[in-house]
């Protein structure tokens, strides 16, 4: 089964702080995604990438940057964290388009106080 590893698993930061969430997948998948999960909103796509150096804007990108440094590694950056970014963040990966399964990591719970 596909392995997607996120770190840290929990993070608390202050308003205005700088946070980086990390994700590594070890299954040679081309596509990687960052989602946030909030009650009542489901899972919403922040950014995604289809290869090293590539970045695509998702549905809720405001306040987030992302970078795909290698095929394995995808980072989500919050440069000026706000309380509205308190959420559960999932990284995911898939190997192709359309009908393929997306594999999720275990999530990072971020709290901005």
């Amino acid at each position: 089964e596909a392995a997607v590893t996120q770190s840290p698993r929990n993070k608390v930061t202050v308003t205005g702080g700088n946070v980086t969430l990390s994700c590594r997948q070890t299954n040679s998948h081309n596509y990687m995604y960052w989602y946030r999960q909030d009650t009542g909103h489901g899972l919403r796509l922040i950014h995604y990438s289809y290869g090293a150096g590539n970045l695509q804007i998702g549905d809720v990108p405001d306040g987030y940057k992302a970078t795909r440094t290698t095929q394995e590694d995808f980072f989500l950056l919050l440069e000026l964290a706000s309380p509205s970014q308190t959420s559960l963040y999932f990284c995911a990966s898939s190997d192709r388009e359309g009908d393929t399964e997306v594999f999720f990591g275990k999530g990072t719970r971020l709290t901005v106080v």
Partner: protein
Amino acid sequence: GDSVTQTEGLVTLTEGLPVMLNCTYQTIYSNPFLFWYVQHLNESPRLLLKSFTDNKRTEHQGFHATLHKSSSSFHLQKSSAQLSDSALYYCALSDRHNNAGAKLTFGGGTRLTVRP
């Protein structure tokens, strides 16, 4: 853009009763892919079943769903609920275009609680 609607946020039912979770979608693309993902407590979402064939029933782990393009629906059903079915269920939509990968648009989720 694409959208997915799950009308029930919470569903509570008794073990042994049938399950039906509603899902409708909107997309401009004629060949969407529809998915159901399940997320148990403190776990990550995982694929339950998927379909892209109109009017064909898809089954997995006792659950089934049929994609109906005429009504833009992909409802999840099970004949008899089990306690272990208690989880958060997401309907999701993907379409193939512009190197988007499996860019999933999720519904708001339905939390299913099955009680003894």
